[in-house]
């Protein structure tokens, strides 16, 4: 099949996500519901997959917790009940993640014009605070054990209970940490911060679904008249057939011959990841308690070692959360995402012809992976504003893959 020939069966599709057309330049802005920020089908799919995972984890957790509670009451042991309380905290963390995942899919309202994606971030923050709180409680318990001089603490029981807890947590970790099934394929669509959508797009292009939606949504606001039938042809043949009306498809072209590019590491949804961290933290703590319990079992006089052990493991748990906290803080501070170098972007823009100055440049993320840009560009008196706008938007989309861009063009 000659893909150079823009006639049937490769009917050129004019796909726009905005219903009205006005002029040759097309619509560059987003109508609310069809925009990047609404819940696209990829988002929804990924979200429901994550929700399913978390639901399974919650159910398992509740079952184990019930087992422990019954056992603890029967054996009249405070240690087992305490461990049941830890499992309860796991359930709480999963519940927070589930709620965040669900709430992030809500439709944007005029009051919340960017949608509810930030709830994910706040939920993750809450989860992390819970982890810290639990670490603090555990240290307190260790001190408690140290101070109660009586031999109430049975090392053997502690050991057994925390071993059970560890076992449960490992199952959860495997369940939650299991990467997205589609992640491993070789197609990478360029830039790392697009992780959430990346997987689904790999999926689409790999499984020959020929679905346009994925790409069009990523370029949010462009009109593409192309024969983007990547479902039917291999990557190389696209180059001629595509005659994009607008030069917005830079990254699309590059992604088409990205077949051989390195595999992009699939990133987990931040809420699933925080639940995963919680579980890992719990396993680490369980190991610590096991060691403490074993020590007390073996030599009840060495209580201080139990405390030291707990302290060390709590610190380890805190270290595992640092990276996520940094990500969360960066998003909440509206800072430039790590993948984007603002100075380079600014100098790149300034280097374009017709551009006199660039100011008020802001790049920020709504949630990990959804990046926005806003800036003011001053152009020369005789430059064509629309053409400059197209150039700037194209450059930003091509180089940095930021699709939601607002540029104010001023003349000097």
């Amino acid at each position, binding site marked *: 099949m000659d893909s150079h020939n823009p006639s049937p069966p490769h009917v050129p599709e004019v796909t726009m996500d905005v219903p009205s057309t006005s002029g040759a330049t097309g619509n560059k802005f987003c109508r609310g519901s069809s925009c990047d920020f609404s819940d696209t089908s990829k988002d929804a799919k990924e979200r429901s997959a994550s929700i399913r995972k978390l639901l399974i984890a919650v159910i398992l957790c509740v079952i184990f917790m019930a087992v422990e509670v019954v056992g603890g009451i029967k054996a009249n042991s405070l240690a087992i009940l305490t461990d049941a309380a830890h499992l309860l905290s796991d359930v709480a963390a999963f519940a927070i993640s589930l709620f965040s995942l669900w709430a992030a899919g809500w439709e944007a309202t005029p009051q919340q014009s960017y949608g509810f994606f930030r709830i994910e971030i706040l939920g993750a923050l809450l989860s992390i*605070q819970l982890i810290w709180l639990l670490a603090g409680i555990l240290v307190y318990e260790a001190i408690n054990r140290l101070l109660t001089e009586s031999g109430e603490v049975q090392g053997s029981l502690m050991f057994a209970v925390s071993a059970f807890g560890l076992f449960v947590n490992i199952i959860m970790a495997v369940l939650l940490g299991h990467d997205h099934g589609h992640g491993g394929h070789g197609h990478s669509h360029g830039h790392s911060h697009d992780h959430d959508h990346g997987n689904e797009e790999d999926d689409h292009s790999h499984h020959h679904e020929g679905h346009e939606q994925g790409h069009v949504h990523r370029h949010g606001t462009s009109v593409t008249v192309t024969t983007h039938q990547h479902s039917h042809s291999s990557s190389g043949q696209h180059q001629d057939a595509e005659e994009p009306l607008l030069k917005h498809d830079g990254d699309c072209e590059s992604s088409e011959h990205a077949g051989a590019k390195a595999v992009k590491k699939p990133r987990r949804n931040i809420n699933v990841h925080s639940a995963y961290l919680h579980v890992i933290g719990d396993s680490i703590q369980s190991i610590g308690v096991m060691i403490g319990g074993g020590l007390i079992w073996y030599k009840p006089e060495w209580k201080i070692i139990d405390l030291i052990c707990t302290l060390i493991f709590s610190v380890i748990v805190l270290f595992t959360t640092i990276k996520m906290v940094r990500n969360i803080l960066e998003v909440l501070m*509206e*800072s430039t995402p790590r993948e984007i170098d603002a100075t380079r972007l600014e100098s790149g823009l300034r280097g374009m012809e017709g551009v006199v100055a660039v100011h008020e440049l802001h790049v920020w993320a709504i949630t990990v992976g959804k990046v926005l840009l806003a800036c003011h560009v001053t152009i020369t008196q005789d430059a064509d504003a629309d053409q400059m706008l197209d150039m700037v938007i194209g450059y930003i989309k091509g180089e940095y893959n930021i699709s939601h861009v607002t540029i104010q063009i001023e003349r000097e």
Partner: protein
Amino acid sequence: MGEPKAWNPNYGVVGSGDRRLAYSRQFSLSSASAAASSPRPGLARSDSSISMPVPYSPFPLHAAAAPANADFRFRWLATRPMRRLALLLALNAAYSAVELAVGLLTGRVGLVSDAFHLTFGCGLLSFSLFAMAASRTKPDSLYTYGYKRLEVLAAFTNALFLLFLSFSLAVEALHSFMQDESEHKHYLIVSAVTNLFVNLLGVWFFRSYARVNIVYRKAEDMNHHSICLHVLADSVRSAGLILASWLLSLGVENAEVLCLGIVSVAVFMLVLPLFKATGNILLQIAPGNVAPSAFIKCGRQITAYEDVSELSQGRFWELVPGHAVGCLSVQVKNGGDDQSVLKYVHGLYEDLGIQDLTIQTEGS
């Protein structure tokens, strides 16, 4: 005129009693007029940072000493609230260290747990202090909006902690209800009384924020309010403990449960509005001081303007209370003058108090 920009706090100069200014309508009107007379942001700066107002501190030597970029030699004691907070922090830290030492040495678990609780509180207060110090840093290429958000974050964390506290108090009440231990620990009274005094001192320092519902005009409002609520909640908790032990000594049954329950509910009600407000800012909700109808009216005015053919949905959010940011897209009719449209739209929104706008005009 030499009228200072709106967000200059009079706090250190006029004295904390003058917070009444913040609640009167005049304040916001004067801020709006000051904003209107200032150079339009859209055509002003050539650096890629937001238009930062005159440096905050009323003391000129501190303004000169303000670091040019985000290095960590902050002025930790620059303004009066910061000094007070530092004092409070020092007191709390010293006290909790003493309590921890005594508790460990004498083997009293109650003291140790109280010391832990205090240490968490100290950590939070120090984060608030850090936010106050760091928020004066100028924006750079990584934090293009500056560091003012830190204050909102600190307030949010404080509010979260207070929610946790209320929850844990409820759990404690439940616990003592089930356990029915009537052994009340005498030594805790001394610690509770000291705690109460230290926290009451803190409440006095931040007494202008000792309300549940405050209208937030600038970033530090939230931070200060959260600190005040923090110390207030702690003092309520100490007072509750003292009351409980007194009632127990009088022979009232379940006094501990009752008191703890009341304190838990009180702290929860205290902190909920702050939590919601800070959460909303972090969630990028539309600016609270502008009514939604005002936005709709602006939208209609823009669409009615002669050169405009259509307007896309404008997105507005607040960086910190009082600093609103927005993005709009306007479709200009063929042959229309986009610069005049820009001026017009900027002017409209400046009347609402929104200065930081990026307007994309297309199609001329």
